[in-house]
């Protein structure tokens, strides 16, 4: 079952890479780039919000640092790709600071704290026009000179694949189990020796790094950024909604979520024009009321519960055979 999933995922990413061979419309490729970009951002958010269960509503901070890192460092004469890398480093440093303060808080306090940090960064970007260009915005260098949109699309697919493989690996590792333990119950997690503060921080650092790469790609495609676009609370919300729609804490959730959300928003864009976030709102309300575990989460739960009926009534001690008893007696923890 698990292996089938990975074959499917590998096929999906390989096929996605061949798309530019037969789709030549820049417009379509740009939409597809956006789809993969948000899948990658959703996968990144999912590590913190889905697996570790920490509802971050401030991921625009890392997205923005990645975007502005590229723009501003390139202005200093640093080559664009090195600037992307340094932007990632800056985002990881911000994540370390933001995480060390906000992870001490639980529940709604944590969510509010992440918003506050993202807002502070946005306001700094707005209010220092000499450095950042302020509200007017700033130019971003192009990362790819040859057949630009195709290169952006390919890099979007690769970033998603990277985030996907990383998540798949984390999901099966001790680190992934630790994240899930923290989501389920932090006290229990500590009682089995998990340094919850450190584990949460690591998940945020990884998440911030991927998000910052996404921010840099996005900024470079549009060539121009303003704080209210890349660091707004709407951006944070969008990054969080994608995986929650698809299924928070599931491997495929963010990818499915991005497909549904971006397709829907593309279809309704012409109907609602400026008000395109309306469809996001409707989808969110539908998910919360009818698919509380997201699309993937709800589907797999249905499957799992039909497949395995309990072997004995819940709670009753299991009858034991003499052989089993012998095995038990031999046990030494």
């Amino acid at each position, binding site marked *: 079952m698990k292996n089938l999933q990975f074959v499917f995922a590998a096929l999906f990413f390989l096929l996605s890479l061949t798309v530019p061979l037969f789709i030549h419309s820049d417009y379509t490729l740009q939409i597809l780039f956006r789809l993969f970009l948000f899948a990658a951002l959703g996968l990144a958010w999912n590590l913190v919000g889905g697996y570790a*269960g920490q*509802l971050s*509503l401030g991921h625009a901070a890392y997205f923005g640092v990645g975007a502005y890192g590229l723009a501003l460092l390139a202005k200093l004469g640093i080559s664009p790709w090195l600037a992307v890398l340094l932007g990632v480093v800056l985002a990881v440093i911000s994540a370390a600071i933001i995480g060390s*303060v*906000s992870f*001490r*808080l639980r*529940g*709604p*306090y944590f*969510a*509010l*704290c992440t*918003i*506050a*940090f993202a*807002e*502070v960064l946005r*306001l*700094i970007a*707005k*209010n220092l026009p000499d450095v950042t260009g302020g509200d007017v915005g700033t130019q971003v260098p192009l990362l790819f000179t040859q057949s630009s949109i195709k290169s952006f699309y390919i890099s979007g697919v690769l970033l998603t694949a990277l985030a996907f493989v990383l998540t798949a690996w984390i999901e099966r590792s001790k680190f992934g189990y630790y994240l899930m333990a923290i989501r389920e119950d932090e006290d229990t997690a500590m009682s089995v020796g998990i340094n919850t503060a450190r584990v949460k921080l690591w998940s945020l650092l990884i998440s911030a790094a991927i998000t910052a790469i996404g921010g840099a790609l996005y900024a470079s495609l549009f060539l121009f950024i303003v704080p209210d676009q890349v660091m707004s*609370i709407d951006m944070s*919300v969008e990054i969080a*909604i994608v995986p*929650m729609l698809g299924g928070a804490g599931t491997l495929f959730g963010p990818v499915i979520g991005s497909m549904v959300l971006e397709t829907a928003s593309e279809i309704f864009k012409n109907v*609602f024009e*400026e*008000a*395109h*976030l*309306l469809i*996001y*709102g*409707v*989808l*969110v*309300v539908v*998910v*919360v*009321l009818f698919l*509380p575990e997201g699309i993937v989460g709800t589907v797999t739960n249905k499957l799992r519960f039909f497949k395995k009926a309990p072997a004995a009534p819940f709670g009753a001690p299991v009858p034991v055979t003499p052989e089993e008893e012998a095995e038990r007696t031999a046990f030494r923890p």
Partner: protein
Amino acid sequence: MNWFYASLQAVLNGLLTGALYALIGMGMALIFGVMRIVNFTHGAFLMLGMYASYIFFQKTGINPYMGFVVSGAVLFVIGYAVYMGLLRRIPGQVDFMVILLTLGLALIITDGVQLIFGADYHQINLPLLAKNFRIGSQISLNAPWLVSFAIALVLAVALYFVVTHTMFGRAARAIAQNPYPSPLMGINVNQVQAISFGIGAAAAGIAGALLLPVFYLYPAVGSQFELKSFVMVVLGGMGSIQGAAIAGLVLGVVENLTSLYWGNEWALAVDFVIFILVLSLKPSGIFGSQRA
């Protein structure tokens, strides 16, 4: 002495603005106290209050200083309906899901209004706007702010009395302390939470109406006030309505002093820095010990 008068003027202006903040924050605190949820629809409610009062003014010519009653009533009904129709139905009322639902709802309301009324800025013109109230030669207070201050003050005190001295208030405080045994004492938790949500929404709506004469109106206008209401609720101690009220006044003063000495554009940033400091140093808040 000029700096003294300038500062005094800023403090007074801050108190006038702060009273409106207090109203917004008390609404948020009431909702948080009784339901333990952060209401991300608060800004949208405020914006709806502004629109309600704007339309009412356009149709009847009655100014928002009386029209706020309409905004309050409309928003109470909307808040009550949102609770009964949506929030109540969330399985297990997991706070993750409640936050998500209120976020989604805010997107629907804000973009829905934009779809219907467009993204244009609106403004109303009242003769009152030009009037100033002078104290001595140095201090002058703008009349519309004075009127809104008076109304907000009366409503804030009224809300405080409702929460501390009525049956509803007692039930609300019981639920805020511990929702589980409340049904055993004959409290209809759903009803009390719905009414609290309605009152919270109404407070935001009324504040919106009172802001209408002195502010531009556009669909996204509520978000900045919503962010401020988060700050107030945390500063006041999550769920304490009197704490949120004091925090509102403090925020108004701090913002005006920041604007005076550092520049208007930093006012909101200072709010958030205070917010982060309070959250990290004293998450229980600094102005409220008793919970609503």
